């Protein structure tokens, strides 16, 4: 790649504060109505006068609205900070970037850990089943609220890519383009299987207590194991070899089933730290939403895309075995059949599924040029 190296020291968007938007009532795909729905979101950059420079960032399973800058309390950088900021892929000098959390989540938006206004208690499993489309609906209400008619793009990796596809299929007149990254039109049995093992781990934890654990001990072990499985699927054989090898940890007692190897220590650490920031019930709801997602639910994808002026940029990663490139190619195939303008790149990466968070240089090149073209076409349309 012959692009400018991204200077890590370059200033990002600085300290940001989450904002909240409340929808009085949201009708879900199931037909149920969810009242007083809150959506957490952050914005970076400035919306231009004609409101033509807005970009919607869509996060993955365990992500949140904090995509860029430093959060006000912990001063932690956002999950896609290297992509968002002045001079970055989503250049905040040019674009108004919105990053929205999803309903069903636990990061400031309404989900199973929220208080049910009808009972005054945590929803837990009384929270209705939500879908990827429901999540996109809530986000669409947010851009209505912000007065944005058309987004320049809806972009995300993994579940964020599913959300981008949901936007593309259901709100094509509200986006100029979509950028689904490392994602699928629908989950394969293998993807459902990994999610199911994660869910079973949570539900097998005695503290889970049919979802009623709020105020008591958390199903921490179960959620940690779910996260450990997740992390295995996010890496690749090669990235694990590079990162850990068969390196042993110091100070472990042999034959006591302690974390002898670096990889074990890493997974335990990842699992344990996840418990501190994520709600187990949200994990159940969101993984189920991903498993149930099917962009061809109503009709073949190419029929949904037929005649659209929306441009699509699809990105996949060679070593991603959780969302293999063939699934991205299915999206591309539908785009080809429908005749819409499409760009596809299978980036040569060893990082596995995590690549969408790590292959910053390639993504920056692809996205910044693609967005520039989309923005130019919007401005001159």
């Amino acid at each position, binding site marked *: 790649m012959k*692009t400018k190296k991204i200077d890590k020291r370059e200033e990002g968007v600085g300290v940001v504060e989450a904002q909240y938007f409340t929808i009085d009532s949201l009708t879900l795909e199931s037909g149920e109505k969810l009242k007083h729905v809150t959506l957490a979101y952050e914005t970076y950059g400035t919306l231009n006068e004609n409101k033509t420079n807005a970009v919607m960032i869509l996060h993955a399973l365990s992500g949140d609205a904090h995509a860029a800058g430093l959060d006000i309390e912990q001063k932690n950088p956002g999950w896609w900070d290297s992509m968002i900021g002045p001079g970055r892929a989503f250049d905040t000098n040019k674009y108004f970037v919105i990053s929205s959390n999803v309903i069903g989540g636990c990061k400031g938006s309404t989900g199973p850990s929220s208080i049910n206004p009808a009972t005054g208690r945590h929803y837990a499993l009384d929270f209705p089943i939500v879908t990827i489309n429901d999540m996109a609906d809530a986000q669409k209400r947010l851009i209505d609220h912000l007065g944005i008619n058309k987004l320049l793009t809806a972009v995300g990796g993994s579940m964020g890519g599913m959300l981008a596809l949901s936007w593309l299929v259901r709100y094509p007149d509200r986006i100029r383009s979509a950028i689904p990254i490392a994602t699928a039109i629908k989950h394969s049995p293998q993807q459902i299987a990994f999610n199911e093992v994660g869910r079973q781990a949570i539900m097998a934890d005695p503290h889970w207590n049919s979802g009623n654990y709020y105020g008591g001990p958390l199903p921490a072990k179960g959620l940690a194991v779910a996260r450990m499985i997740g992390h295995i699927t996010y890496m690749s054989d090669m990235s694990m070899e590079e990162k850990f090898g068969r390196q042993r940890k110091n100070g472990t007692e042999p034959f006591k089933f302690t974390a002898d190897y670096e990889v074990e220590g890493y997974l335990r650490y990842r699992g344990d730290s996840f418990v501190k920031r994520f709600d187990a019930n949200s994990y159940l709801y969101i993984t189920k939403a991903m498993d149930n997602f099917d962009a061809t639910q109503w009709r073949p994808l190419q029929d949904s895309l037929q005649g659209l002026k929306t441009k699509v940029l699809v990105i996949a990663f060679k070593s991603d075995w959780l969302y293999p490139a063939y699934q991205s190619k299915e999206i591309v195939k539908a785009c080809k059949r429908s005749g819409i303008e499409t760009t596809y790149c299978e980036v040569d990466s060893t990082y596995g599924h995590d690549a969408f968070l790590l292959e910053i240089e390639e993504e920056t090149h692809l996205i910044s*040029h693609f967005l520039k073209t989309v923005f130019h076409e919007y401005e001159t349309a």
Partner: protein
Amino acid sequence: MTYVNVRFDHKAILKLVKRQSAVLELGCGAGDLLSLLIKERSVRGQGLEIDEQAIYACVAKGLNVIHGDIDSGLAEYEDKSFDYVILNQSLQQIKHPDSVLTDALRVGRKVIISFSNFAYYKSRLQIFFGGRTPVTGALPYQWYETPNLHFLSITDFIEYCRLKNVRMERRMYISEDKRIRLLPNLFAQTGIFLVDRGL
């Protein structure tokens, strides 16, 4: 109109393409021809290219390009999706030229094919007198590093069109920066054909 720094074969292809048409280029490389067609003919362009670095170059030019190989990538398009399907120096590099050409004629109303002529007289001299596999301006590779899987002459292609009932609408023969009108299979380095199904 004059074009500075534009390859002669690109200029020739430009002449064959109508304004505001839809173009699919198979093996578009870094996208120079596709960019030229968009700029000069306002075409709606789509590229297909196998090389990842070339994809980045295309995206930097603002082109729509799909990363994939021609042999499998063409089948996914509907009939007559494009006014033109272009194979510029890529026919020699694909595994199954016959099935790709058949599919290109299905996907495109017209197909533009440009290839290096293996029967160019300098190649013939190198084989005949040198006893060596020819290396020329249009075929610049040694046998051990050539991306070309197939070698064909202008006469071969014309014969192919006859055999497969492909209608040749226009032919252009060039060598260096000149049009060749006399004995093209001997004197042209490159043959450019505009063909269709003639229906």
